[in-house]
């Protein structure tokens, strides 16, 4: 067991003029994660600390934060493994704050909704499953693992500078459907991403792929969409 100092960014827009940092010392044992340390602080030292939580097993996407200068899931970050006596915990940067480590995700989900994130079918449905070969299914493997944690969104300079930009997570979702062999959107979904608000705002800086705690690659999806737009418009292809 060793004492670790958590240097936590605090901010209550109703009271504070500006964010400030507060230190909490937590005795860290065994496999304690940053999320568990935040609970320890909230339970034993400061009941007012605000943060998002749910699954504590890196699948719900609630707890993306900026921890010692890196985008991480608090619940997936083992404190001892970081090997440092002092851990700085900040909310995702470049996004509007609700309080402390909680930020306002409304815009993020508005943009998600904007790309029509659902399978579009026009032909009649079979009585059983729509068949899909393992090879076709394999194409979905990367984008379907997105947990909508928004680390990528917060890390993207194009998001910082252009508030209308859909951002990497929404575009990755568009890719997830466009690349699905079962999707029959044709050009129905395309206007939502094939524009200046969409894929052309991505300058392949690839911060998103660097930030993603699930090791996904939104840039790859966005590049595919750009290529697909060309294939459809110039070559008359379906995808």
């Amino acid at each position: 067991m060793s004492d670790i100092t958590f240097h936590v960014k605090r901010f209550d827009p109703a009271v504070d003029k500006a964010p400030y940092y507060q230190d909490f010392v937590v005795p860290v044992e065994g496999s304690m994660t940053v999320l568990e340390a935040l609970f320890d602080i909230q339970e034993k030292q400061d009941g007012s600390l605000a943060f998002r939580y749910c699954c504590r097993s890196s699948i719900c996407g609630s707890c993306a934060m900026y921890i010692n200068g890196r985008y991480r899931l608090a619940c997936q970050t083992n404190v001892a493994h970081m090997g440092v006596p002092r851990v700085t915990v900040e909310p995702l940067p470049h996004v509007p704050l609700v309080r402390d480590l909680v930020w306002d995700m409304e815009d993020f989900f508005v943009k998600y909704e904007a790309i029509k994130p659902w399978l579009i079918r026009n032909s009649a449905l079979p009585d059983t499953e729509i068949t899909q070969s393992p090879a076709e299914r394999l194409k979905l493997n990367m984008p379907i693992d997105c947990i909508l944690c928004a680390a990528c969104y917060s890390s993207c300079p194009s998001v910082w500078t252009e508030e209308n930009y859909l951002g990497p997570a929404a575009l990755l979702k568009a890719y997830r459907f466009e690349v699905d062999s079962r999707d029959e959107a044709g050009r129905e979904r395309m206007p939502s991403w094939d524009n200046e608000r969409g894929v052309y705002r991505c300058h392949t800086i690839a911060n998103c792929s660097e930030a993603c705690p699930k090791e996904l690659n939104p840039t790859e999806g966005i590049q595919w969409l750009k290529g697909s737009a060309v294939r459809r418009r110039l070559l008359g292809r379906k995808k």
Partner: protein
Amino acid sequence: MISHQLIVVGGGLAGLRAAIEAKDAGVDVAIISQVHPGRSHSGAAQGGVNAALANHPDASDDSPQKHAFDTVKGSDYLADQPHALQMTTDAVPAIYELEHMGCPFSRFDDGRIAQRPFGGAGYPRTCYGADKTGHYMLHVLVEQAYKRAIAMYVEWFVCRLIVEDGACRGVVAYNMTKGGFEEFRGEAVIMATGGAGRTYSNTSNAVISTGGGAAMAYHAGVPLKDMEFVQFHPTTLFTTHILMTEGCRGEGGYLLNKDGERFMAKYAPKAMELAPRDITSRSIQTEINEGRGIDGKSYVYLDLRHLGAEKLAERLPGTRDLAIHFEGVDPVYEPIPIQPGQHYSMGGIDTDVDGRTVMPGLLAAGECACVSVHGANRLGGNSLLETVVFGRRAGAAAARDILGRERGAAAPQGDGAAAAAVEAQVAELAGREGSEDAYAVRQEMTEVMRIHFGIYRDEAAMKTGVDALLALKTRLKKAKLRHTGRVWNIDMIRTMELEGMLDVALATASGALVRTESRGSHARTDYETRDDERWLKHTLAFYQGDDPPRLDYKAVTMGLFEPQERKY
């Protein structure tokens, strides 16, 4: 006041499926959820969802009837048999529907949905998407909710039901991001709030699986059914109780004791590692109790090494990540230290096969409900199934009730009294005298449940446990809020939910103490056998304030299969 015809509390699989059904029927429906629906605990489900699609070469003669038999036998004959058959029959169209909505199930070479073997099942009938089935299903239903523009109140915490003239008329909820309490009024409410795993310290469940919906219904006078039946999953990580899916054993994983022995051969010679969960968990616990845990500690090994890196990457990639991140063990090279952990609440709000409760206007579906299809022990893969099957049925029933009325119900009217009552409750919490610490009470409750109402139970331990819970209830009354801020007040949420957790825990404890038999997950060392003559019946627990619940009983609906001894 906010009003919608139908209010669904919970945005997990059950709540989403209910809302989609009602919306498609033409009802104005809203989902209220403490977390964004896509973050609900359903997303943590890994291994798969059962349906007799008969896609597997070894399962060409599988059928809903056989699936129902496995479910009923797995339940140790406590499931209501027609309900189990209803679920297994609805299963097949439910899975095709999910697939049509875009659910990325894994595939066989012929392009059909892949199916894997699971515990207690006679055929490989568990459909899966690698080992992230819940995540994929949940995101598909979230997408469908957006497609339908279903109203969603995200990050609103529901605190209580509004009951007038004996009927449920809505809920009061806390607006987490903006602060303040609001009344939501409707013609019906569907509870879909998930399980109560967090009443135990050793749970695989999310931090928000606190049994809140069950507690709200219970406090309002609706009975909780079969709460003593708590599932312990055989394989949770030793240090964190994060789940290692049953799919690990479905794909051929071994359980090994300190001598490297596949000990399941002693307990379930035919099914081996794929015995049902109650039996497998008891076997592991017996190995540990008798000193055959690894290094004399309280864990055994789940060994996946022989499956090879390629198969793990294809079928169990999430499991590998979890073991590496949370236990520091790479299953490709090392066996995984595991022990059984609390996993699922078989009991819940007493409902019929359409989700209706005894209270007009109140329905329930998913893990917070008890239909009952799982009886005394749920089969792996049947819970994801339950959420979509009974979520749909509850949504349809609520829609029929709402649309079937002669004329529309009078516009709901709120005088603000219900919201004011919650505000008064919070003021009382904030103004309390006393030095008790709610978090210490919570911590002790979870340990009482783990130790006294765990895998093996007996009279003396359970009596002490009930007394301990009653004492904790008294102590909680002296615990004061630490933080009174309006916005994102976790302290308030966690203190408010604790009262309900203690009551749900007490319902489990009281039912368990009285049931003098062993059935499914309820295993007593002082009454080791099943006693159909006296105990082939459902427990109903009625809330009694400071006292333990009043218990009543109700017959199990049989009709399809005669009870037999369970051998695997």
